[in-house]
């Protein structure tokens, strides 16, 4: 953050899972999905992580009939709560990110990792949104 120059997305640049998750949530929020239920978030991430493995570290989800869980994803999400994304009342069961805040996050992520990083995340966000919509229709 201290560097003010726009950095290209160099292959050796360290991108944390947290920043990837932030990018994903921000892209979804900028497309109107400002609230995502936490359990759904884990479940869909668990479904999609292999398809988008080039964007993610190796991950191993524990699946049950109700859920998917990964400690790494939990850590990444926990480090965003309260500062970069909100857990709104009354139920605290959803991650919330307002559109305006999402835009700021995307500008920062692009400045730090380059446009290519956002471009790579877009198909992931699209698939995520499609699954969210389809789950909502079936529930």
């Amino acid at each position: 953050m201290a560097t003010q120059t726009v950095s290209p997305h160099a292959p050796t640049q360290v991108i944390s899972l947290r920043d990837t998750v932030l990018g994903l949530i921000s892209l979804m929020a900028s497309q109107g999905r400002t609230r995502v239920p936490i359990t759904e978030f884990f479940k869909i991430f668990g479904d999609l992580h292999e398809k988008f493995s080039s964007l993610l570290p190796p991950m191993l989800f524990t699946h049950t009939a109700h859920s998917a869980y990964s400690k790494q994803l939990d850590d990444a999400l926990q480090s965003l709560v309260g500062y970069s994304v909100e857990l709104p009342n009354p139920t605290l069961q959803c991650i919330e990110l307002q559109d305006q805040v999402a835009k700021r996050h995307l500008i920062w992520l692009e400045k730090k990792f380059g446009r290519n990083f956002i471009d790579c995340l877009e198909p992931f966000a699209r698939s995520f949104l499609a699954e969210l919509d389809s789950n909502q229709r079936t529930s």
Partner: protein
Amino acid sequence: MLEAKLRTRLNDYLSPLLNDYQKKITRRLEPKIFRDVIWGFHNYRPYEIAIIDLPLFQRLRNLFQTSLALFTYPCAVHSRFEHSLGVASVASRLLSAIEERSGGHLDLNPVMKLEVRLAALLHDLAHGPFSHSSEKFYERLTDEGFPIFSHNRISNRRITGRLNLERPELFAESSASELLTYLLLTTDAFKTFWKFVVGMYERDEPSLREVDPERMASMILGADLKIGSHGRFYREIVNGPFDADKLDYLPRDGYFTGLDLRVDIERLLHTLKVVTQDSVRTLGVVTSGSSVLEQVIFAKSQLFSSVYHHHKVRAAHQLLLQLLRTLSEGDSRPRGLDLNDPVSYTILDDYDLLGSAHAESKAETIVTTIKARRLPKRALVITYPCFADGESRENFNRLDEDDVKLIEAQVESELNLHPGDVMVDIPEPPRVFGTGQALVELAPGRTMLLQELYPAGAWAKAYVGYRRVAYIFTTSVDRRKVGLAAKDALRKLADPIKLNENALDLAKT
């Protein structure tokens, strides 16, 4: 393969140690009874005593369970040793309770029962000095320029932890110390030693012949690979949403720090249930057990905010990081070991780091400072109510290691302080959502996640998120001056972090 390379190095270290130990042990006829302050009396079988008496296991006596918390909570001098014994004891209780509550409908596999107990006993075997404090340091070590562990948090595959890339099906979700424990238990030296122990005791306990150190080790990693989802509940006793580790350290750390934490484990034992869904057998509870799981979640959150993230504990942690950095730069070598080699963390203990072997070095100065408890003090406290606006909060969460170094250097240079006089400390929030993944049986065949039944996990997630606190510490006597300079440095960043007066007030400068 890095996995093979590390295992070979561990093997070279273990081989003479275990050979020597093997010559000295004799066959025991009786179990040994230990009295524990938390769980009372507990029996350890003769073959378990052979493990407990290992110099490797005895080393755990010299690792403080709560690291440097003892400088804040003077009674917190309990060690990983008694915790490990306690975890085995809790694992046994969980197994017995499952069996008893099933009313004869669930026959537990005798081999798996032995493995669960042994894995519980051995789960912390490779913890480094000051446990999680040094783990944060060595998880960043590299091999031929690539990170070894990286604690799985790096997204780009080309530079993510080498070990995780090599065997994601095993290592992807494990911590650096769990990974080292796995490697240690799967060395030829350990397997040979285990065969020796089996040979000694198989007449008394025939199931020992089938005990597989690799399966025990993968339970410690939290991976089902060698167990299969049908036996997942065995693994979950060792590493799962409410495992024996948590059920031991919550009351134990609470007891030794003096924190009045409540986890009604006796109640939990009466509500355990192995839930079967789509041939996956998971450890769960019936509805009346859910409140105990909520206690687990809240007790963990409390321990973090009151103990592990207490400002004095974090100040001591910063000094420890300075010590590890100094030692890794070759200032002095504890027991002649190189701290850039992850294997050395499985050998050294807390006393090695705080010993007097660093004479006449920079390390000795740091050690003396820690021992005399001349801990750095708060110049600035950064927590939710300290931000002047939302954007500053977002910017703060974007700080990386380079930013932290830059802020420290800027403040030191502005106030003519020495390098290391200013320390920015941003602790990672704890993982509290995992217990919310436990299954609760509402009626036969009908289950829900604890998280969906009562959102305790999400409440704790919010509590921990908004309760997070970071510090700027200093050794300078003029803390207010440092606080003001740091506040100014944060404000002048490319993405500014504006703090209000709370940041100085909370630091009591």
